[in-house]
C-alpha cells in the first residue's frame, strides 16, 4: 500500500469541462465525456493513443468505462468504473495513482458526463428502493441533508442565515466564472424566502440541476514534467464509506470527511492551515459547513460562524468553491470531478478574476449519496 499511494508520485496534467448547462436534445453522457476528454488532451498536449488507463462514473450507465472506450475507440490496459456518487472521481484519482505506480497504466483518463437537466433528474438518477425509507417518501437526497441541517442547528445553534451565507458566497464566486450557470447576484433574504423544499432547506440551499461533463488526465510525476502545463501533483488521498441510507448515518453532524480528510493530510504531510483553496462538494448549503468542520478548517459546531459575514466569499478568510460551486456554477448530479478541475486551474494560476493569489495547495473534497461516501484529494504545485 505505501508503495502504491505515494505523495507527489503522479500529477494531473490535463483538465477540461465539456459543454455545461443545457445541451441540445439527443446529447448523451458519452458525447460530453468525449468532448471533455479531447479538450483535456489538447490542454496537456497528449494524444488519444497515449491513454492506457480509463476511469469513469455516471449515474446514466452501468458500464460507463466500456461505453466511453467504445465511443472513443480505446483499448486501455486498465479500466475502472467505481461508482460511489459524486466522490467517485476522487476515488478514481487514488486508484489511478495505485495503477500508475504499479505499472498497470501510464496515462490515466478520468471522465464524467451527465444530461440530467435534459432528461430530468428522475430519469438520470433513479432512486433505489429502500424498504425502511422509501415507504415514508423522503424527498431524496434533499430530505436527508435537511435532517442533517436540522440536527446541526439543534445541536450547535447554526442559523438559517448562516446556511444562506454559503449560497451567497458561492454566487459571488460564480459571478467571476464566465461558464457558471447563475449570472445574477443573490442575497441572504432571497435564499431564506425562496420556496421551501424540505425544511429547513429552500430551493436556494440546493445545488443546481444542469447537464455537464469533465475530464482530467494524470500521469507519473516524471512524465508530467515534460508536458505543456504546470503539473498539479497529487499529494494526498483519503476515502471513507459509511452508510447507504440516511437512517444508517451514525451521527448526522459528523461526516466521513472527518476520516478521509486526516488520511489525506497525513499522506500529504500538511495541516489544514497550509491549504490555500478548499473545494468542498456543496450539494446543499449544510455540506460546506459540515466539511469545513470535519476537514479541520474550524472546530466542530463552528462552521456556521466560519461562513458568517462573508467568511468564505471573495475577500473572506478562506477561498472556498471559487468556481461558484454546485450551488451556482454547475451540478450535473455527480459533481466531484469539477472540484478537481477548478483546483488544477487555481494551482496553475489561470482563473482570472477569481484567481487565489499564490495558490500552492488545493484541497478537493468529494461527497456521494446522502453524505454516504467521502473522498479527499490534496493537490500541490510542488511535488517532491
Amino acid at each position: 500500500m505505501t508503495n502504491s499511494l505515494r505523495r507527489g508520485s503522479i500529477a494531473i496534467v490535463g483538465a477540461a469541462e465539456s459543454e455545461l448547462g443545457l445541451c441540445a436534445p439527443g446529447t448523451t453522457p458519452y458525447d460530453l465525456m468525449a468532448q471533455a476528454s479531447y479538450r483535456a488532451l489538447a490542454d496537456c498536449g497528449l494524444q488519444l493513443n497515449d491513454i492506457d488507463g480509463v476511469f469513469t462514473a455516471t449515474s446514466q450507465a452501468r458500464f460507463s468505462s466500456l461505453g466511453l472506450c467504445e465511443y472513443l475507440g480505446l483499448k486501455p490496459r486498465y479500466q475502472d468504473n467505481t461508482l460511489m456518487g459524486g466522490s467517485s472521481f476522487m476515488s478514481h484519482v487514488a486508484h489511478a495513482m495505485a495503477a500508475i505506480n504499479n505499472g498497470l497504466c501510464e496515462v490515466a483518463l478520468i471522465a464524467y458526463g451527465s444530461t440530467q437537466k435534459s432528461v430530468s433528474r428522475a430519469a438520470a438518477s433513479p432512486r433505489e428502493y429502500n424498504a425502511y425509507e422509501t415507504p415514508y417518501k423522503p424527498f431524496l437526497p434533499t430530505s436527508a441533508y435537511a435532517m442533517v441541517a436540522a440536527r446541526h442547528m439543534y445541536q450547535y445553534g447554526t442559523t438559517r442565515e448562516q446556511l444562506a451565507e454559503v449560497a451567497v458566497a458561492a454566487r459571488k464566486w460564480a459571478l467571476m466564472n464566465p461558464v457558471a450557470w447563475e449570472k445574477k447576484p443573490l442575497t441572504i433574504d432571497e435564499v431564506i424566502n425562496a420556496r421551501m423544499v424540505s425544511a429547513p432547506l429552500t430551493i436556494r440551499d440546493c445545488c443546481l440541476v444542469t447537464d455537464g461533463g469533465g475530464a482530467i488526465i494524470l500521469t507519473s510525476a516524471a512524465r508530467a514534467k515534460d508536458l505543456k502545463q504546470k503539473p498539479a501533483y497529487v499529494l494526498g488521498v483519503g476515502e471513507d464509506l459509511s452508510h447507504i441510507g440516511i437512517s444508517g448515518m451514525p451521527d448526522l453532524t459528523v461526516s466521513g470527511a472527518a476520516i478521509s480528510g486526516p488520511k489525506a493530510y497525513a499522506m500529504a504531510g500538511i495541516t489544514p492551515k497550509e491549504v490555500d483553496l478548499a473545494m468542498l462538494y456543496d450539494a446543499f448549503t449544510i455540506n460546506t459547513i459540515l466539511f469545513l468542520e470535519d476537514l479541520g478548517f474550524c472546530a466542530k459546531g463552528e462552521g456556521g460562524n466560519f461562513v458568517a459575514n462573508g467568511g468564505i466569499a471573495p475577500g473572506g478568510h478562506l477561498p472556498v468553491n471559487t468556481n461558484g460551486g454546485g450551488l451556482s456554477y454547475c451540478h450535473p448530479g455527480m459533481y466531484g470531478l469539477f472540484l478537481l478541475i477548478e483546483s488544477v486551474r487555481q494551482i496553475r494560476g489561470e482563473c482570472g478574476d477569481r484567481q487565489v493569489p499564490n495558490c500552492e495547495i488545493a484541497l478537493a473534497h468529494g461527497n456521494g449519496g446522502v453524505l454516504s461516501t467521502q473522498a479527499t484529494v490534496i493537490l500541490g504545485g510542488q511535488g517532491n
Partner: protein
Amino acid sequence: MNEFDLAEASPNGIYMDYCQKDQLAFQRSPSGKAIFYPRIVETKTGEGLRWELSQGLGTVYSTTVIYSRDEKPYNVALIDVDEGYRMMSRVEGVEPEHVRIGMRVQVRMKTFDDGKKYPIFTPDKEAL
C-alpha cells in the same frame, strides 16, 4: 445459532409480518446490541440475531417537512427508539412543522397506499 434460512423467510418479510400484526420488531445480537434494519447476521460479528418486540417509544433525532407540489406538506423523521436503534418514519397527529427534535413519540401502525401497515409515530401522550 443456525444460519438464516432465506428459502423460508427474509428479514424484511418477517419484519413486515410483525407490522401487519401491529407489532414493531427489531433484532437483538447475542451480546445484547439492538440491530436495525433487519439483517441475516449482526454487523461486524456475523452472529445470528433474534427478534424482539419494541415497546414503540422513542425520541425524534431529526425531522424535516417535505413541501411537494402534489400533496399537503408532510413530515419525515429519524426516530431513536428506546431499545437502542434508529429508524426512519413519520410523526403524525401534529402539524408537520410542529415536530421537534427531542420530542417523545409512540409508534402506531398505519395502512399505506400499498395496503400494508407500516410503523409511524405520534406524540407520546404521557409526555404531552
